[in-house]
């Protein structure tokens, strides 16, 4: 017991010393998880189904961004206006690719089953099939080895918080994700389109009687979630690089984040993502890096057992 106390004491000292450093990294990761988690939550809101193919939407965004960078970044690392332009183009390409992949998945793996009113197990299996198809096709076309993204900016320290450096990369994630979350909140909460999404989430039958086009609403939900997932894939790839199966682990974590915040609840997904990212990063002090994925998974099981509705609760269709 004494040695365990000693273990905790030394590790808490490390935690105290490294806290802000790990916190910054955790927030950056958490925002990425949140962007993916929003996609799970949106689809879950309207269909009451987990989109197993969301990891491949993330991956397609990663690759679309990678191709933009390959085409635009020369032998020297760009700076200033050029960096901004390349990143904006990368985001646009990744968002488009994510939305396109999501539309494809909805058309092929969901809509035919919806027409037939298939049982739930059938949707899970066809979505897994779509995921499997897409990532292995990417493996065939783009190779099975990971490639690093060409860097479109100089990753210097922009400012520090309590001595912890905030890098350019962290700042980009912060700005992009906050803009997208605000836009999403406005879209779902304030526009006619968002009202349609919320009404389908609450009661699809009544919504259809009120003149909401259900097919169109579901398609748009996939597109919105897909665009965010694709952009997240691009931002993730900037740091880690891209590979055909890059989506699997981040998507599992984003799903954990969505459940943690309360699935079907957009603000919950953002909160869950942030929380998961930070907790996970702080755990680096206590467990070896290889077991970090185990931590996230443990959190998932714990949440599902103790509070399956998540922190903020499942608020399907109510104000965001």
């Amino acid at each position, binding site marked *: 017991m004494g040695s365990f106390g000693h273990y905790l004491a030394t590790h808490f000292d490390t935690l105290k010393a490294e806290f802000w450093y790990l916190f910054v990294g955790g927030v950056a990761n958490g925002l990425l998880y949140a962007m993916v988690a929003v996609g799970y939550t949106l689809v879950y809101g309207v269909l009451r189904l987990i989109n197993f193919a969301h990891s491949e939407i993330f991956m397609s965004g990663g690759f679309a961004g990678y191709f933009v960078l390959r085409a635009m970044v020369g032998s020297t690392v760009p700076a200033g206006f050029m960096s901004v332009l390349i990143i904006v183009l990368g985001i646009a390409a990744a968002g488009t690719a994510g939305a396109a992949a999501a539309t494809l998945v909805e058309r092929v793996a969901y809509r035919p089953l*919806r027409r037939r*009113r298939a*049982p739930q197990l059938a949707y899970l*299996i066809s979505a897994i099939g779509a995921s499997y198809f897409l990532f292995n096709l990417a493996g065939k076309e783009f190779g099975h080895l990971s490639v690093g993204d060409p860097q479109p900016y100089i990753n210097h320290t922009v400012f520090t918080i309590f001595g912890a450096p905030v890098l350019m990369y962290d700042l980009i994630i912060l700005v992009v994700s906050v803009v997208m979350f605000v836009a999403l909140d406005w879209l779902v909460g304030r526009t006619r389109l968002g009202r349609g999404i919320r009404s389908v989430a609450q009661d699809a039958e009544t919504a259809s009687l009120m003149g909401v086009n259900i097919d169109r609403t*579901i398609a748009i939900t996939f597109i919105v979630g897909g665009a965010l997932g694709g952009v997240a894939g691009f931002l993730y790839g900037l740091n880690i690089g891209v590979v055909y199966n890059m989506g699997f682990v981040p998507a*599992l974590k984003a799903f954990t984040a969505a459940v943690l915040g309360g699935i079907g609840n957009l603000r919950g997904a953002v909160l869950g993502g942030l929380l998961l990212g930070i907790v996970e990063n702080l755990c680096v002090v206590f467990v070896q890096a290889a077991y970090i994925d185990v931590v996230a998974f443990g959190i998932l*099981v714990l949440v*599902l057992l103790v509070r399956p509705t998540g922190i903020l609760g499942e608020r399907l269709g109510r104000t965001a």
Partner: protein
Amino acid sequence: MIRSFFQRAPIRRLLVVVGVVAVVELITGPPGSNQYPTSGFTGSYSEAASFFGLFRTQRWVVFVALALIAWGIVEFWTRYGAAIRSGGSSALAGPRQVSEKRPVRVGFALALLVLGILLPHIVNNAFWQSALVTYVAIYVLLAIGLNVVVGFAGLLDLGYVAFYAIGAYTTAWVTGALPTPPPFGHALDAFWAIPFAVVFVVIAGVLLGAPTLRLRGDYLAIVTLGFGEIITIFANNLYGITGGSTGTKQIPHPVFHVGPIKYTWGLAPVPYYYLALGSVVLFLVVFSLLQRSRVGRAWTAIREDEVAAESLGINPLKFKVMAFAVGAASAGFAGVITASADNFLFPSSFTLVFSINILVLVILGGMGSISGVVVGAIIIQVVQAYLNHTPPSGYQQPDLYIYVGALLITMMIFRPAGLIPSRQRRREITLYEESHEGHPDEVLLGDDV
């Protein structure tokens, strides 16, 4: 004007057919790489290729022709298909009724068993003899086990590989091939791994199942997925216990030694084939008996309507955990046989991909139909063995998974009950879908979500 043209049914079907053919062309084409990411695409559409040695032309020419032919068939089928189908099924009614009589079924099973016993001597070829074990028999064993979980009890388990891994690692442990000392301090024969493996997988099944099986179907799928992933992480990183990422290469061949009978398995695959065949037959008998027992009926009841089952006094959790543990047992067996036949063991063989591959075997044949699952597993595994042994040009081993994914979607769209569905399962699905047709209150999905 243009819009209305594209909305005409035949034109829309043509667009779908062209899309499908374009995808087929892509997945059968040459591979690309991250250095030349477009080469796969350009190669797939514009490269010249020889077709079955008959003629040589640009790939796209052949595929345009194929698309037109396929469109013709689709149009023909939508116009005259209903008439053909109703005529066809009445012609099939005779033999189908016969095949459902019990003596006929038993006779058929015995004939297949004899064929199974003779098979290694019929395929007198080193590759196929070893493929019978490593590609076919082991996977049949895994598929019939997963069928208990997915088919009988209706639970989607994406971490099934974990039980297989536990079986394999138990074998390595019992025979003293791991850094951990074997049980009772000295290495035992691989046969002793069987009771250990069965006990361990059943315990693992209960430990995983008891907390998670209360969850909804989709949550269960994702939790089991994570569980499978975690087993791989542990196997990869616990160097002192599992040997880490290099695994172990020293698992001895099993020796059967009871009284005067002594038999030693060696490098030859055929004796392992009989070992695996014996296990398959054992589990087939056990699972068919279970399916017809009170337990099997309870599984069906839970699968069809959990609330109704519960109100009849069935404890869903108890029977679900039981399905998990029973299904895991055959995976444990398969793990023992693989580990001792291969003599080695790497954590990289136990991945998510593996669980999905087993799921595909179950789905192709028909969830819940034992004979269907066996047939489906044999078909897919023989095709896989063939493709790996004599790959067509442009084919790489992971390409199989593209086809697997496409197959999953196609099956779910066109034939969710599988190729050889169990009568009950087929009725369930049609009843389910028909009962929902007249109810506008279920606009999106069924009501069990």
